[in-house]
């Protein structure tokens, strides 16, 4: 397993470099935006003297690279810096927004995996027949609908017309778990497209696996039913699905801006939107670090899963 350990270490090093690159890029792009935090704070009466004073108070008059270096130095000690807009530590923004995002992401994931895999296996089992055609066309159709449209549709029907569910999470704060009814619509919207892509990938992989000589061999030896499908065929269909799943989780954890905005959920996506609007560079950078690390770790995890289920790949590598 030393090969695996060194491979993981190399991947993590590369991931750190990638995260640093993301942070640099985000910093450069935020700097390139017109205006800065001082302009944003100055509000509706942009008095040049007042802007200059605020700029001096916030240290924004110092060169960009000095500010970046100072911030990076703090990061090495676990200090994300302080918000320009409110003066609160950036870490409070991150922890505050992470709760709702994590809750939504985990709920979605818990429902996504069984639903996606189950639908995929079901369709593959009935390949070419009615069930398969139904599953395939419905998943393709739903996948084609963007989140915001689907969200608006669901809200209109279930919240506004029927009144079964609250239309948004306004007024519930960050403790969303106490109000499960507010979570139903966002989770449904988050689920809609990932379920479809996962089901379609699993279906394709399962059709190949079910037609393979090794599944025929297992069938010949009296292994049938669910054990054959889930124990012997599915592991071969997992590799592509795992990578898709990592991308989905990454997307979920990095705050799905559209869904959070639509349902007014105070997650990371909302924090990001506000920070960009206020040119609050330290908060944006803090988020970039969190998103970068999340992406690196999730993809590493997916690659480890793929290695486990397609062990022959290590021979070629």
């Amino acid at each position, binding site marked *: 397993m030393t090969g695996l350990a060194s491979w993981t270490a190399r991947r993590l090093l590369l991931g750190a470099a990638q995260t640093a690159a993301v942070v640099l890029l985000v910093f450069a792009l935020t700097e390139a935006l017109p205006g800065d935090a001082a302009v944003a704070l100055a509000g509706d009466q942009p008095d040049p003297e007042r802007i200059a004073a605020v700029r001096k108070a916030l240290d924004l008059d110092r060169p960009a690279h000095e500010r970046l270096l100072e911030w990076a130095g703090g990061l090495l000690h676990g200090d994300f810096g302080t918000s320009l807009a409110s003066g609160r530590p950036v870490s409070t923004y991150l922890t505050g927004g992470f709760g709702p995002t994590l809750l939504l992401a985990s709920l979605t994931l818990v429902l996504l995996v069984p639903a996606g895999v189950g639908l995929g296996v079901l369709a593959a089992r009935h390949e070419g027949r009615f069930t398969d055609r139904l599953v395939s066309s419905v998943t393709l159709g739903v996948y084609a609908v963007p989140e915001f449209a689907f969200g608006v549709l669901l809200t209109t029907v279930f919240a506004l017309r029927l009144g079964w569910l609250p239309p948004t999470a306004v007024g519930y704060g960050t403790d969303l778990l106490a109000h499960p009814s507010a979570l139903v619509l966002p989770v449904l919207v988050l689920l809609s497209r990932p379920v479809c892509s996962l089901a379609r990938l699993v279906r394709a992989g399962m059709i190949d696996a079910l037609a*393979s*000589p*090794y*599944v*025929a*061999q*297992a069938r*010949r*030896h*009296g*292994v049938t039913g669910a*054990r054959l499908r889930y*124990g*012997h065929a599915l*592991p*071969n269909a*997992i*590799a592509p699905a795992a990578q898709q799943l990592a991308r989905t989780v990454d997307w979920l954890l990095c705050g799905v801006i559209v869904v959070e905005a639509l349902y007014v959920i105070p997650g990371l996506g909302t924090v990001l939107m506000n920070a960009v609007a206020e040119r609050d560079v330290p908060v944006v950078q803090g988020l970039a670090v969190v998103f970068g690390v999340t992406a690196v770790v999730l993809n590493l995890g997916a690659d480890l899963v793929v290695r486990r*289920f*397609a*062990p*022959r790949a290590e*021979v070629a590598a």
Partner: protein
Amino acid sequence: MNAVAEIRDLRVEVDGRALVDGVSLRVTAGKVTALVGASGSGKTTTGLALLGEYPAGARVTGEVRLPGGPAGYVPQHPGTALNPARRVGALLRDIARTRVRALPRRERRAAAHQRVLRALSLAQLPDPEAVLRRYPHQLSGGQQQRVVLAQALLLGARLVVADEPTTGQDALTKQRIVDRFAAVARQGIAVVLLSHDLDVVRALADEVLVLRDGRVVESGPVDRLWPAPRRLRTAEPPATDGPAELPAVHGPADRTGLPGAGREVLRVGGLTARHGRTTVLRTSALTLRAGECLAVVGRSGSGKTTLARCLAGLHRGHDGELLLDGAPLPRSLRDRTRAQLAAVQYVFQDARAAFDEHRPVLAQVARTAVRLRGAAEADALAEAVSTVTGLGLTERQVRRRPAQLSGGELQRAALTRALLARPRVLICDEITSGLDTVTRRGILDTLAGLLRDRRGLSLVLITHDLGTAAALATRIAVLDGGEVVEEGPARRVLTSPEHPFTASLLETSTRMT
């Protein structure tokens, strides 16, 4: 003797074409029944019928009875029957579980494990506990075959169908496979052997059925049918490999007269080749002279293909110096000029994989002349047609796509493709393994014809089979564990080998016949 399986008047028809027509067969416990025939004779269809499996859309009449219970199956490539994503133990455990349902729940697990271990040791796998934890790709081909055999034993199968178990194996490995199936038969299990390898059939079988075009043309006990089944003997030339032919090395060996008569074409200085950090091949100087056929013989994993790939520029992880006509030849294909590329041509073992399945064969064959010699498209096509007909194919055949040609036909097309480059050195890497006896014989005759007719063409023949080497080679180099253990004129190596490994190769190839 009690029958464990019986087929009566089986007819399998796909799209109006009969794959198997009126085959009857009775298999008894502890006996080996061989179905012999060229590819396409209906062996595999009959064998799979014993497992209750038929090609898609087949119309089946006749009766298949299995009073002995379900049959086990060992496919030609056992690796394909093993799940790449699961450890070897996974399926074995699941099979064992179906056999211990009668026991109380808590004893099942231990009982199943015991059964698995017993089956693995019956299949002659040493250290079964370790094997259970491996993935299929971590096992050798022989171990994979034994694992698949263990699956059948675990099922309690009274009948095992083995499809071409020895194809593409060297003589020593073949001997081991024969021993393995003989041991299975001794346990009272019936074995149905599907094979075109007459040596193996003779060593193993009790009863033989000769199939041609889906019909049984001859059948009976092996002793009565040998020295060779009449139908095979009369209709087809005997196998080239065999001790009867070993001493009689004539033709190619005598053609060049004194060894070393031709001009030196290719010279390899001392060469050490690596895969990653492991050294896989170490040779002293080797020379190839014009008009000569150098056979490189060795078991799988001995480094013979690596040597061929070094010569062809396909493997650059080596430090040897290659000289073509005295001029240095770059290590990598990418650095060679067109003339140098044309001079050293390679024909691969798997001809089907060497062709693009979507384009007609002829177009692909003619391309060599255009790319490497700058010939005009029309001239190239004309030359391709004349060369390919010279090698025994028709123009109509090569105008088709690769899927419509047989393995042997494609191998001839692949040879043509290499010849259109007008090479000085033609490297043939196991180009006859995986073909049946008749086809193999034909290809070897073609190669001998090339050596005779094309002055200045030299052949490097990579093979695991001393018989193949004996039929063509002027000189033989024997490789073992990445070292050249013996090298010399073919006749000398075959008649008085100096190295014990060569002797053991000769001995097993004699015993197999």
